[in-house]
Structure formats: C-alpha cells, structure tokens
C-alpha cells in the first residue's frame, strides 16, 4: 500500500536541515530514495534498526538526507564498512547505497568479494553510466561508443553488466529495475531487504546533465521514457534472441538462491571456538590441580 509523500517527508527525511537536496532537477536518485523509504516503511522496520551506508558520488549523498543511522564513507569502501557493522551488530538491517563507479571501479574488488562471501547485506547500486559528480568522465558501465568528457570521439571499451557480474560472483539475490518502474523498484528493494544473504539491486538511472546531453539523449523526461521503451521483463527476455536483446534492459529477479551466510557461519565459529577454549581451560585446571597435589 502506498503511503502519502507527507509521511515519508516528515518521518524518514532530515526535512528541516538538508532540503531541498543538491541533486539536479529530474535526477533519478530522488526516485530511488523515495522507493527505498517506502519499502522500509511498508516492512515496518523502526528507524533505529536500519543503517544506511553510502560511498562517494551523487548516489552517496543519500546518507545525508535519510533519518536512519547513517554513515558516509570513503570512495568504493562502503561495503567494507557495512561488513564491519554487520559483524559487530548482526541484528541491524544494513543497506549500502553506491553508484556504478563507486561499486564496480574503485570498489570493484570489495564488491565481488562481498558477493563471494555471501554476507547478509543489501547493496543498492544506482547505475547512471557516468561519473556525474566529477564532470562526466566515463565509468565501467558507459556503453560502447558513447561520448563523455574523457571519450570525446566515442568510448572504445565495453560496459560491465553489474547484475550479471554479481550473480556470477555468487550473490544470493540479484534484481534489476529502472527509475521509470518506481513501484516495481520498491517491490524489488523490499524483496532484497527481506532476503537472507547478499542481495544486489541494480537500478538503471538517468544522468541527463552529464551523460544524456553529450549523447543527445534529451532531458530527464526523454531518458526516463527511453527506459520505459527499452526494458523487457525476465520472462519475455528468455524467449528473445541475443540480437533482439541488444540495447535492452532486462528487469526483474535475475538470481535467487539459498546459500549459507558467512556472518552467521562466523557466529557459529565463534561459539565453537569458545567451547573448545573452555574445554582446554578445564583440562588445564584438572592437570594443574593434580600437579599441585603431587
């Protein structure tokens, strides 16, 4: 059930300090933030049991605006900080918000290894296919041939597919959505939070100021309409040929598997080690007493 924006504004945002926000007019980050807040609200989580960790970049500004326990960390290292929080306090719900450059370029190693370890975290990656905050340089998700500040004659490298990378690296839950499908996005974020294990949520967003203008994709409205036209559901994509799928965005749940969670396994190891240590201590005590008597 959708809640009125006034509840979101009054309850979940730092509305008296930080607003209006710094994002450009029509930026998809605001839509992602709204979907995230509605998902948390509908799950009935209290603000004290949610932690939002974010990295550097436009999407990283999100931790400034929401009224959870928040942490604004170094570039690319958001997942490492959230790993630490999860290990210290496993009862908290840890959400990690990153941009595409933050997650796959600077923090690429942390990202694939967090997926491999299968930590009980939720990573929301806002993919706008450029480094928007620093002036529109190309990022690992910039499509082949598109123009940017550092590729004036067209990009010569090929793009990452974040969702498929995460699925291959071993994440338990991988889903993709766009900012046009805001209610679908909310549903996917809800599933990702509920899912036990490392869940990755890739959100295709628009950067009409840095990416769209250089590639003549139009403003915010035209780019968001483009997402509507280009996206296909997972069921439909399985029936299509690879040539037809070129340039399309597959939305929906791409991977959903059950795996042992490393944060829980770690708690089990701690308990076993404690038992073992107690056993040794008892034996030593017995031996020590005997020696003393002798």
């Amino acid at each position, binding site marked *: 059930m959708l809640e*009125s*924006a006034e509840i979101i*504004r009054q309850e979940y945002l730092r509305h008296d300090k930080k607003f*209006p926000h710094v994002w450009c007019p029509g930026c998809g*980050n*605001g*839509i992602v933030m709204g979907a995230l807040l509605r998902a948390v609200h509908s799950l009935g989580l209290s603000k004290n049991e949610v932690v939002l960790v974010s990295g550097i970049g436009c999407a990283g500004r999100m931790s400034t605006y929401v009224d959870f326990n928040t942490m604004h960390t170094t570039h690319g290292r958001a997942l490492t900080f959230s790993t630490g929080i999860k290990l210290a306090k496993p009862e908290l719900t840890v959400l990690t918000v990153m941009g595409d450059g933050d997650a796959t370029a600077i923090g690429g190693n942390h990202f694939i290894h967090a997926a491999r370890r299968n930590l009980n975290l939720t990573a929301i990656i806002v993919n706008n296919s450029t480094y928007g905050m620093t002036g529109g340089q190309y990022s690992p998700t910039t499509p082949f041939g598109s123009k940017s500040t550092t590729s004036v004659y067209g990009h010569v490298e090929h793009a990452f597919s974040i969702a498929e990378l995460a699925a291959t690296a071993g994440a338990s839950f991988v889903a993709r959505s766009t900012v*046009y499908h805001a209610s679908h996005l909310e549903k996917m974020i809800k599933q990702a939070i509920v899912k036990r294990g490392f869940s990755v949520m890739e959100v295709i967003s628009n950067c009409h100021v840095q990416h769209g203008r250089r590639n003549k994709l139009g403003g915010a409205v035209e780019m*968001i309409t483009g997402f509507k036209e280009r996206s296909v559901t997972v069921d439909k994509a399985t029936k299509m040929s690879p040539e037809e799928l070129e340039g399309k965005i597959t939305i929906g749940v791409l991977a959903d598997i059950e795996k042992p969670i490393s944060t829980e396994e770690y708690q089990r190891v701690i308990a076993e080690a404690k038992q073992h240590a107690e056993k040794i201590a008892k034996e030593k005590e017995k031996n020590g007493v005997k020696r003393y008597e002798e």
Partner: protein
Amino acid sequence: MVKNTTTKQKKVPKPPTAPKTKAKEAKLYTVTFFHNWCKSCGICSAFCLKEIIKTDAAGLPYIDDMDSCVGCRFCEIHCPDFAIAIKDRHPERRSSNGKQ
C-alpha cells in the same frame, strides 16, 4: 430520410443519465505541490495520465481541473524532490464506497 432521423431522435434520451451516476461514484483526490522543494524538472506534467498537470512560466506545476485526478500516484512516486502529496479528498467516505 425523414424516417431515419425520427428513429435516431427517439433513441437519444438514454445516455445523459449514465455519466451522472458515474460522476457521483467517482473518488476525488487532492494533489498538493510543495513549491519550496520543487525544481521544475517537468516529470509530473510529462507523465500525467489525464494530462491535467500544467506548468507556469517558471516551470512550477499547478492543476486547474482537480476533479479529473484518478489518484494513480504516478507523479507522487516519480517526484525526485518529494514535492507532491496526494490525499483522498473525503477519506471518511471510503468505508461506504463513496456514498454518504
């Protein structure tokens, strides 16, 4: 020719009654714009289902024909600036299905 027109005229009187009952049952919504936070990006007016959201010279949205709003909440959930709120105009009537 004369016969045809007379038959057509006889069938006419029924339609006006139908829309009247529909208009009575229709649920009404109130859309409020929080102009302090609005950056006039134009998403709400471009995607409005009923095309009732219009923009003034500064790009700020306004609605003249508020009764046509169907409450799809597309503009509310797609507003990046949290500047739109939609409410039922008569929330107390919800239980009785619009009847007082």
